[in-house]
């Protein structure tokens, strides 16, 4: 049997469909469906500034998604090397929303337990302060010196605001998902 027949025989479209279906909950379905038009032309990887210096190959990930290679996709270190700069999405000749798809694929990877430790910590910081980067003593002093309120006029001066955000991340199940990720 020719290699291509082997590949086609083994291909499972469940991952591709899962990605399209998850993405369609947020983005317009017709945009997500364009994923099926990918011809593996490589323009995405060709213009990718991260691909020049890392093992991130968006074309490869898209092929693996098409072939249903779930574990390879979700555990690929490269998946987290995309800076979401949108160069590939701007240039895709088939109008595939490539960068948005990367975020959808990352969502599924995280859901299946693949979350990077620094990212888990960023989330915990967000749950604690309402900011991914909160104020610190050095910056309080800088603000004061500049004649500004030491504590920024944001959620940091609003305990009730922080409570609101916590309620939201609990309601969506996000807080639990992050807390359940193994260190």
């Amino acid at each position: 049997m020719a290699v291509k027949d082997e590949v086609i025989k083994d291909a499972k479209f469940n991952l591709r469909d899962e990605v399209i279906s998850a993405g369609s909950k947020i983005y317009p379905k017709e945009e997500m469906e364009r994923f099926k038009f990918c011809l593996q032309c490589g323009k995405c990887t060709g213009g990718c500034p991260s691909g020049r210096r890392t093992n991130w190959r968006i074309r490869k990930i898209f092929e693996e998604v098409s072939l249903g290679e779930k574990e390879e996709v979700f555990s690929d270190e490269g998946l987290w090397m995309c800076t979401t700069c949108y160069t590939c999405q701007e240039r895709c000749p088939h109008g595939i929303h490539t960068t948005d798809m990367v975020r959808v694929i990352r969502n599924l990877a995280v859901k299946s337990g693949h979350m990077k430790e620094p990212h888990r910590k960023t989330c915990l910081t967000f749950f604690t302060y309402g900011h991914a980067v909160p104020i610190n003593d050095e910056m309080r002093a800088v603000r004061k010196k500049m004649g500004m309120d030491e504590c920024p006029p944001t959620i940091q001066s609003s305990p009730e605001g922080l409570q609101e955000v916590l309620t939201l991340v609990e309601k969506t199940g996000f807080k639990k998902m992050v807390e359940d990720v193994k260190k």
Partner: protein
Amino acid sequence: MSKYAYFLGCLTPNRYPGIELATKKTLGAFGVEVLDMKGASCCPAPGVIGSFDLLTWLVVAARNISIAEQMNADIMVSCNGCYATLQEANMLLQQNDKLRHEVNEVLKSINREYKGTAKVKHVIEVLNEDVGYGNIQQKLKCPLTGVKVAVHYGCHFLKPSDARKHGSSERPTIIDDFVRALGGESVSYKNKLMCCGAGGGVRANALDVALDFTRDKLDNMIEAGADCLTTPCAFCHFQFDVGQVDLSKNSGKKYELPVVFLTQLLGLAMGLSCDEVGLSNNKTQVQTLINKLSNVQMVKA
């Protein structure tokens, strides 16, 4: 004149309060009313929280937008990440009734509702559309004559272009025109539209990769003879400023290109001092730029 709810995000108030200071001062000078958004949280970051759970990303964004809606004001941002999140959340929630309903169901638990009545604008759009570059030129006391500025647009101000609608993402001019309006020269440099390297959670997860982008950009700016770089994004500003300290430590080569946020550059051209636009707080030196601006002193006499 117009009024805006200033969505500060994280980096602006918590690491670069000078950006907040300069933005409020310069816009105030043109009669734009800038209001604080008490209770506003992280936008949340599009490539971080958005990469983990898009629904949570949208729900928290919708809460932030609802704060401005209650203030009856449109939103202004000084970070491309905040811009991406809030502008896209607005678009997604307005085009999809089912999604808006789902998000509002969650917001009900905190007695809030997303209505979709507030627009989201980047500060450069406010300067271009509400103030006008022509009016800006009338107030310049210290035009940037002879100053070579490397413009870094950042990614999410321009892209995805079908959502942002600022025209070509490969040949933008809005910030180059701004620099020219201030009397400066916008230098062209190799890979000008390339990312700073920080986004998408890369800075947090793989700092060396993020810095490799940054080094590439800085080398190209320096080669073009830039006196400073300017950004419309607090996160890019952070990456370039702190990044130069890291690069100087790691590479042995000294990186010291002044990093100036758009409204800080405007403030300098309006005759404000380095302290008055909050530039003294940068980790990378700015003295070489200040020396170029003969009428500006480090501390106003």
